[in-house]
């Protein structure tokens, strides 16, 4: 592992993003538009917006970062740049951490703008502090990024990579407690929901919505998210093979 190579790679990925204005615009605009849409969807029920809008603040960045990184990493594989990188002094972990840092920067900007909009213009109300909501939202997008890096190993084309979104992310959205409180699901579904990382992300945000001070459950949930990010990155590194058939 080398910090110098990791940061060189993160810088390179951010430079690639900078040349792609449309992607930047999509990263920043899509969550804000969707949140605005939600706000007026629940125009007569601000309490519901406080609950759903808050959760979406965590879900949108996760989905977007998942898509972005799975496609970006797949491109690295299919254009041969990954094979070339693996013949240079950079290590596998440096490459993945480089992706992690670059997209975490993008995710932080995205989550900050979305949270600022939700609190300042859309009237989102939470008992807990807004900055912690921002922290969890960034944690979620980093989680989306780590999952995206991991699944890109199992895709051979961009068509397949995009299909992993409904396959990997959508079940988590359905089971995370957004549509139905988790304790009202069938027992076996609840068990599945217990091992899906997004359930903890949503629980952390819900805790923040309902309590003035950060709770122990919230810190535990944040710990679970960080743990999942680390595990996904390590598994991702294991899927990067220097020698291929």
């Amino acid at each position, binding site marked *: 592992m080398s910090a*110098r*190579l990791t940061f*060189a*790679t993160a*810088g*390179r990925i951010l*430079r*690639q993003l900078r*040349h*792609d204005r449309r992607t930047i615009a999509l990263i920043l605009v899509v969550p804000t538009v969707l949140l605005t849409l939600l706000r007026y969807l629940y125009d007569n029920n601000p309490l519901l917006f406080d609950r759903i809008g808050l959760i979406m603040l965590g879900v949108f960045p996760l989905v977007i970062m998942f898509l972005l990184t799975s496609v970006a990493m797949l491109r690295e594989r299919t*254009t*041969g*740049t990954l*094979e*070339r*990188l*693996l*013949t*240079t*002094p*950079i290590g596998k972990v440096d490459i993945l951490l480089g992706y992690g840092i670059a997209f975490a920067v993008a995710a932080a900007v995205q989550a900050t703008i979305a949270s600022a909009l939700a609190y300042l213009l859309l009237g989102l109300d939470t008992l807990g502090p807004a900055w912690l909501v921002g922290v969890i939202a960034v944690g979620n997008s980093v989680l989306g990024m780590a999952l995206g890096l991991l699944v890109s190993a199992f895709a051979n084309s961009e068509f397949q990579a995009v299909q992993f979104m409904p396959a990997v992310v959508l079940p988590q959205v359905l089971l995370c407690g957004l549509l139905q409180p988790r304790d009202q699901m069938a027992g076996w579904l609840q068990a599945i929901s217990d091992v899906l990382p997004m359930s903890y992300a949503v629980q952390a945000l819900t805790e923040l919505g309902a309590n003035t001070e950060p709770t122990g459950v919230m810190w535990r949930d944040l710990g679970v998210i960080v743990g999942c990010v680390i595990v996904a990155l390590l598994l991702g590194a294991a899927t990067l093979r*220097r*020698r*291929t*058939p």
Partner: protein
Amino acid sequence: MTNAIEVEHLVVARGKRRVLHDFTCSVPSGSVTGLLGPSGSGKTTFMRAVVGVQQIVSGTVTVLGHPAGSKPLRDKVGYLTQAPSVYADLTVKENARYFASLYGLGAAEADAAVSDVGLSQAKDQLVGTLSGGQRARASLACAIVSKPQLLVLDEPTVGQDPVLRNELWQRFHALARAGSTLLVSSHVMDEAGRCDRLLLVREGLLIADESPAAVRERAGTDDLEEAFLRLVQAQESVQESDKEKVA
């Protein structure tokens, strides 16, 4: 003279097929060695084995005294893949600087490599907007930027005009004089004459490992293209008579 690459009894399978059969050869240090053979004969596969990204069935590949692909080689070996592998959404200069940074080198070395391949004019252009030949040279710049001890170049002159091709070959020899070893693949026979040594491959079998002069002499012709055809035919008739003996 020592050898930069030593290959012994290398066997490689891709998919279900054997692509390299019991390949044994060596590449002398400081030489420009040409790897020639028809399309699909196994040139890229051999180069991938040398840089250590190819899974092999058996045999050994030793590069600069270390097993191919091992850690001490990573800053000593440069690899140009056959399809240009550079980032299309970065400029030529940004690509070269990124690859330079992986070897701890700075902007000056990166910019020198870009001008070495004749891309100074286009250095601020996005690679995605370059012509095919320019893109190949952008990729080449990223391979030579670290001035590695061993350069493995897979068809570096494809798609280049004769003037540029000549310049590139002069640059390869200049790198060799400065102490690098170059393994260069091509299927253009008129490039074979520019090499110090030739490895001729056909269907995964090595049919010649000698200097261009020796190839010409053995085949009894001055034309390398003709010489290659004769060697191929000679090998085919050997195989035929082997089969007859077995029958």
